[in-house]
């Protein structure tokens, strides 16, 4: 586990200066193989580059792991009554799986596919091969038992975006790095003096619910 968590700790740091290395995070929901996948996939979905930090520096995997213990991940907010009948895509999600189950099935499916095709789990593949696999999952070209790969991919991508850009109180967006790259002021929520300063650059940095600034 230590070694795996270390991947997060070594995640590429944002261009805006290296912070102290984050403490290794021990996942609560994901097992070692799943966590390994999650770290690798997050790194591809939001890579660190000249435009700003990547998902690992923003601790997106930690965010997702922490979300998995909320009622949301158990489907508490979704209508989950049977029967589950599949229909056209535009009529929406019809699987009996809450987010937690989608992750369990989806990650196992991705790793099984990677192992069959490339004799290695997803995390051990080269980045461009990982990208191909993610694109195949996104396009619905893989099937993991009764979970279409696009359903898993959409769940993952949605949570990755949430992790990178939500308030750090939820475990991601470390150092407000997601907000800083967008120029989003976060929880400032008061533009009384700025609303009609047309075209001027908003001078204040981001602030979080707990008062952290960037």
């Amino acid at each position, binding site marked *: 586990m230590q070694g795996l968590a270390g991947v997060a700790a070594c995640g590429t740091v944002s261009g805006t200066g290296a912070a102290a290395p984050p403490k290794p995070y021990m996942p609560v929901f994901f097992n070692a193989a799943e966590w390994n996948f999650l770290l690798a996939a997050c790194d591809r979905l939001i890579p660190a580059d000249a435009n700003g930090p990547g998902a690992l520096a923003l601790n997106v995997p930690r965010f997702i792991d922490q979300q998995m213990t909320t009622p949301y991940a158990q489907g508490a907010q979704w209508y989950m009554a049977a029967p589950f009948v599949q229909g056209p895509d535009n009529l*929406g999600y019809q699987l009996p799986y809450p987010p937690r189950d989608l992750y369990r099935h989806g990650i196992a499916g991705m790793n099984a596919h990677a192992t069959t095709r490339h004799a290695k789990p997803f995390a051990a593949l080269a980045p461009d091969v990982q990208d191909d696999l993610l694109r195949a999952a996104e396009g619905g070209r893989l099937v993991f038992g009764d979970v279409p790969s696009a359903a898993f991919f959409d769940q993952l991508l949605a949570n990755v975006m949430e992790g990178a850009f939500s308030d750090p109180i939820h475990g991601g967006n470390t150092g407000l790095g997601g907000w800083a790259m967008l120029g989003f002021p976060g929880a400032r929520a008061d533009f009384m003096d700025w609303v009609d300063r047309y075209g001027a650059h908003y001078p204040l940095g981001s602030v979080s619910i707990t008062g952290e600034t960037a």
Partner: protein
Amino acid sequence: MSDDARTLKPVDVVVVGGGWAGSIMAKEMTEAGRTVVMLERGPDRSTAGEGAYPASIDELEGNFRYKLFQDLSKNTVTIRNNANQTALPYRRMAAFLPGEGVGGAGLHWSGVHFRMPPDDLRLRSRVIEKYGAKFIPEGMNLQDYGVTYEELEPFFDKAEKVFGTSGEAYKVNGQVVGQGNVFSPSRSDHFPLPPLKDVYTAHLFRKAAAEVGFHPYSLPAANASQQYTNPYGVQMGPCNFCGYCSGYACYMYSKASPNVNILPVLRRHPLFELRANCHVLKVERDSTGTRATGVTYTDAEGKVVTQPAEMVILTAFQFHNVRLMLLSGIGKPYDPVKNEGVVGRNFVYQNVTTSVVWLDPKVETNQYIGAGGGGVAFDDFNSENFDHGPLGFVGGSPVWVNQAGVKAIAGAHSGGPPGTPRWGSAWKAGMIDTYRHSLRIDAHGANMAYRDVYLDLDPTWKDAYGQPLLRMTFDWKDNDIRMNRYVVDRIGDVAKAMGARNVHLTRREFGKPFDTRQYQTTHLGGGAVMGTDPQTSALNRYMQSWDVHNVFVIGANAFPQGTGYNPTGMVAALAYWAAHHIRTTYLAHPGPLAG
């Protein structure tokens, strides 16, 4: 009803649902000296609680975990595009976001606050006068409301004063008085507050629209532009454009809500009682079936309780009202095959598409600044403000920049221009550029009513109380698609005048079915419409059931077809209008108000 049901002490009026419609009706009935019990299925909520800064300023909770919205796990709808399909449950929030809890969606709506255009209130008559009856496409159920703008004007005015609405009038008592919407009808008074300031994108849109020759105006907004005290004596503070508006309780007490504008007074009234966490199962009727005797509900402990009442007012939101009527046997259910019955008939939505305009990379559009009801619109292609003759479609669409505050997760999801990947470095570059330098323009069109678009009860799926879910049969029709495409092209003209670097015009596509996965709006309408003919309306023009005279049903369910405007201004006016007739006529002489 089960034998172990408890029966409570009778009251004069039961109000089902604690949103705008319910709060207005409860206030009016207590003013009339009646005892009122308000039953709300969700929790009690207040601005001091749910709106407290900074905890409320949390996009994940507000817009992605739907903290203040309906608990779909207990109750949802099923949806299909046509009667040959099996409707499937709407399992996750997406296309529309119904509210729940005290205040209803009124606690966390946006605040765009319109009056219904006079022509829309008599659209069938107007279309026939202008273009002849043959102009109405086969299968379109075009109808009049049975009430005119002149009749409703005092109630639009009252609602604006209660909501503390900011805006600029065009005509007051027939005199042009300001820079308001040139297409809007005369008013008896100004808006209670001056318009909100334009955010930068709205300012640019106003200039460009005027240059093209359209007639831009400030959106009327129930977000207070200044401090305000409403006729009930409650106070609002000035909106600071915080950008956490749609989906949030307003921590500044600036956005009108039942919780801020009505309930503080109502809660203290000795004739009023609020019961939260009480889910109404059905309206009970006497042996003749023509009189309601009260309602049965499940209380917070899960006990089934009957509350007898002289009068039942359904204010549970558009489709929940329709469902309660169907579950209670009030009015004849609609049968699309025989084309008979009225409850479920003329179900409509909002025909909205959002286009994106990219400005010079040096221009920062600051999309995170905004108020839910603020912005700039033009109505040159709304309602009957333009000649539909050569265009060959019914209905129209206001066009606007209504920047309610785009936050970071939403920005990340919207991504870059079409063709940009949804992830990886290319997504990142496109998304950051789009977030910083683009703006959004909506064509907020009307959706007409059609014979084969309707609501009924689902044969398969049930709610947490064992009652059938409501089933929606809905799709976009050619008339409405053509209307959208025509108006969206006008957005293209404005974008050009803005000096756009890039434009993505979002048009409705022929043959592309209604997609329940994409957020559109919560402006659902019809299904139990008002009118003057009991063959084509479930309610008379006073919002009273034709069949059960002591049941009044208030909500956007009353709209015979969709409109280009947001619904709540009309819902509030209809509530005051119905309350006026209940107070002046019905209470002294209970019975049908129209015959």
